[in-house]
C-alpha cells in the first residue's frame, strides 16, 4: 500500500530538485523509453533506509561529474506502481530491485546497480561506481 503522499514528497524532491524527471504514469515511461539515442539513467526510488541513506545522496555527486547521462528519470517503487511496473517491463530479465539504478546507452541496458550493492555501501562509493559506468559507456559509444 502506498505511503502518505506528504511523507514521500521530500523523497521525490531529493531527486527532482536535481533535474531528474519523474515518471508518474505508464505513458510517461513509454515516452521516456521511446527515445533511444544517447545515454539515460533510470533511478528506482524507494522509501527504505538505504534509499535515504545511500541511493539518493549518491545521485547529486554522480550527476555533477563531467561525464553524465543525457537524460535522467525516476520511478517510485511502491508509490507509482503503474509507472514502476511499466519501467520494469523494459528489463524484465532482471529481478525487481528497489532502490536500484539502471544505465542505458542507445536504448540498451549497460549497467545495473541492484539494491544489495547500495544497502551496504556509502553514497560516495555508489557515485564512484556510477561515474565509472558513465565514463566507460560514453567512451565506448564514441569509439
Amino acid at each position, binding site marked *: 500500500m502506498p505511503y502518505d503522499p506528504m511523507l514521500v514528497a521530500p523523497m521525490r524532491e531529493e531527486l527532482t530538485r536535481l533535474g531528474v524527471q519523474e515518471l508518474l504514469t505508464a505513458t510517461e515511461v513509454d515516452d521516456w523509453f521511446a527515445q533511444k539515442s544517447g545515454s539515460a539513467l533510470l533511478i528506482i526510488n524507494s522509501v*527504505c*533506509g*538505504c534509499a535515504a*541513506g545511500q541511493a539518493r545522496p549518491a545521485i547529486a555527486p554522480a550527476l555533477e561529474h563531467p561525464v553524465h547521462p543525457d537524460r535522467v528519470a525516476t520511478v517510485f517503487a511502491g508509490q507509482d506502481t503503474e509507472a514502476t511496473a511499466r519501467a520494469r517491463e523494459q528489463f524484465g530479465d*532482471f*529481478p*525487481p*530491485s528497489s532502490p*536500484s539504478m539502471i544505465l542505458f546507452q542507445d536504448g540498451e541496458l549497460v549497467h*545495473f546497480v*541492484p*539494491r*544489495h*550493492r547500495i*544497502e*551496504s*555501501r556509502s553514497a560516495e562509493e555508489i557515485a564512484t561506481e556510477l561515474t565509472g559506468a558513465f565514463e566507460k559507456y560514453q567512451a565506448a559509444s564514441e569509439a
Partner: protein
Amino acid sequence: MGTFHQDKGELHGITVLVTTAGPESWIGRCDTMMGEHVVLLGADRHHADQDEASLDEWVGKASMVGFFPRHERVLLPHAQVAAVRPLHEL
C-alpha cells in the same frame, strides 16, 4: 552495517547468502538472526540436487543483477545454517 533496529543483529536489512548443512542455499534480505531462526525476507533458493546452475553460478548471477524474491519469508533454524555472508562481499 545494517539499518536501525539494533536488536535484530548487525545484518538486519542486508542481503545475505545463507548456506546450510544440506543442499539448500538461500539469498534474501536478512530480517533477524537473534531468535531461534535466521529470518529472510524476499528470498530465493538454490538446491544443489535440483537446480541446473551450480551454487557458484547462481550466486554469481545474483551478485551481478540481483535475484527474484520467490519466497516472501523464510525461517532457517540456526542448527541448519552453515554460514551467513553479505552478498556484496561475495
